[in-house]
């Protein structure tokens, strides 16, 4: 049964056993505007919690995407290279950035659940 959590920097992580998929939320995608370019990490890359994992660019802004957890990348979403607009169209589905195996599941405890993330978004309006 997969579970989704969020970071304060607007990344989402969908956990499935010992692996997870990471992307940015629709709120973040909206704030960026039309995404024009995405750089995803390569398979095998080691990521640390809170450190830069990917880059997403729109016409008017460029942003780092931070890894919510420590782990090793199993796959970067190559579809984003051809169609960066997927991030805007389906941020939580086809617009995923990378998948990774988790090194330390206890890190998930710090992340926000759906209710807490929704509250964060509501606050910023």
């Amino acid at each position, binding site marked *: 049964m997969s579970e989704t959590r969020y970071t304060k920097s607007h990344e989402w992580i969908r956990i499935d056993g010992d692996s997870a998929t990471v992307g940015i939320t629709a709120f973040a995608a909206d704030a960026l505007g*039309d995404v*024009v370019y995405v750089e995803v990490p390569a398979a095998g890359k080691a990521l640390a919690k809170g450190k830069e994992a990917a880059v997403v660019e729109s*016409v008017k802004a460029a942003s780092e995407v931070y890894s919510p957890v420590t782990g090793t990348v199993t796959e970067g979403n190559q579809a984003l290279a051809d169609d960066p607009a997927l991030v805007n169209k389906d941020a939580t589905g086809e617009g995923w950035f990378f998948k990774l195996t988790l090194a330390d599941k206890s890190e998930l405890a710090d992340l926000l659940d759906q209710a807490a993330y929704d509250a964060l978004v509501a606050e910023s309006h």
Partner: protein
Amino acid sequence: MSGWSKAVSNFTATPGVSGTYSGHRGLQIEEPLLFERDSEGRCGVDLPEPPRAKNRLGAHARTGRIGLPGISEPEIVRHFTRLSQKNYAIDTGLYPLGSCTMKHNPRLNEKMARLAGFADIHPLQPVSTVQGALAVIDQLAHWLKVLTGMPAVAMSPAAGAHGELCGMMAIRAAHDAKGETRNKVLVAESAHGTNPATAAACGFTVEAVPANARGRVDLAAMKAQLGPDVAAVMLTNPNTCGLFETEIREIADAVHAAGAYFYCDGANFNAIVGRVRPADLGVDVMHINLHKTFSTPHGGGGPGAGPVVMAAALAPFAPLPWVVHGKNGFEVLEKAEGEAAQAFGRLKGFHGQMGMFVRALAYMMSHGADGLRQVASDAVLNANYILASLKDDMSAPFEGPCMHEALFDDRFLKDTGVTTLDMAKALIDEGFHPMTMYFPLVVHGALLIEPTETESKATLDRFIGVLKALAAEAKGGKVEKFRAAPMLTPRRRLDETGAARQPILRWTPPKEPARDAAE
């Protein structure tokens, strides 16, 4: 057979988007790229036959075509003339870009820069043959030092951002010379993007200093951020909100007490030139944009010049070359030795943007000390006139008076569906270049207006009237008009997303059609 595809034909049997057969609309001519012209056998220059001489290119001669089109002179003159007619310019009308100082570019400057004695001299000619050029550099340096109250000036930086690099490198060199390692630079939150980019390029980490509710640097916050690891503080004064930093001397004192240097971005010098000296404000180093305050033309993006005035503590580290008074006239110090022993090195080739020096000096001589004082006065007067006239129709985040530029935010557009961007595009249809949008970042949807002193009251009144009317229309719900703007320009809104997703950064020759297999 021509190696090139046929010229793009503008003729169609039925009128297209333009409503005309040719695609042109009156004086607005659709002009293809140079490379799209049929060019067999044409050339825009006549060259003599080369004399007979041994070929010494060895095995390295070029083989294969470059691919450049050949075009005659009349077609080239027409091509570029037509392109020019698609451009707005200061010569066309008001260009109210905040912090850009789009003032009139006097033609006297152009005439002086083209004197053979200035334009046709090589930088490495023996110094005895270029004493007049070195005198120009020396005189311009003198004007800059007197106007700013600073004892030294580095003349070589090629633009404001380059000057920032120069200033920050001098600061790093000064700390190194004292044996101090300070790796942090504090930059005002409202700073122009070049400030943090420059600090990072010099190996510093950047920390933002917040603004207070009055739009000025939060002195208490800055004091808390100062420490033995801070090399410098970078501010702009007047700041990018168009406001004079009221506590600037306290800021300078705090910075100095912490052993750091005060870098001032001189982009807004037009507000105080001839009236206030940065040295009297506690500034240690400041770049001056000759293409802003001193009228050298913007040229569609350059060239500029960014000489950097320096306090005595930083002067020894100024980059090479130094123009100095020697025994037999002017000399150029090009190596880090003697009095220039601590110079931090070179930032570019040769001596600096001489062509811009001549222009700026002609401008300074024309205005004189009294004229430059009037420049700042009129620049500030014009901006305040705009602020006072529009603060009820639009929304100003800070109480006046402002300096040479007036800042508005997008609160007056709240719930209208019209954005700052839409307002700017609607202004284009009214015949005005938009003001600076979305900068500074410290207010939402910023609109920053800098008229400069070379605008007449009649122009300002027309501009104010148009903004009042547009603001009223936006509040009156005419959203579609704003979203569709501009309608009257050579091109309407352009797809910037598409341009960034699939970058096409040059023309590429089309592939030759494949030969029919049956032939």
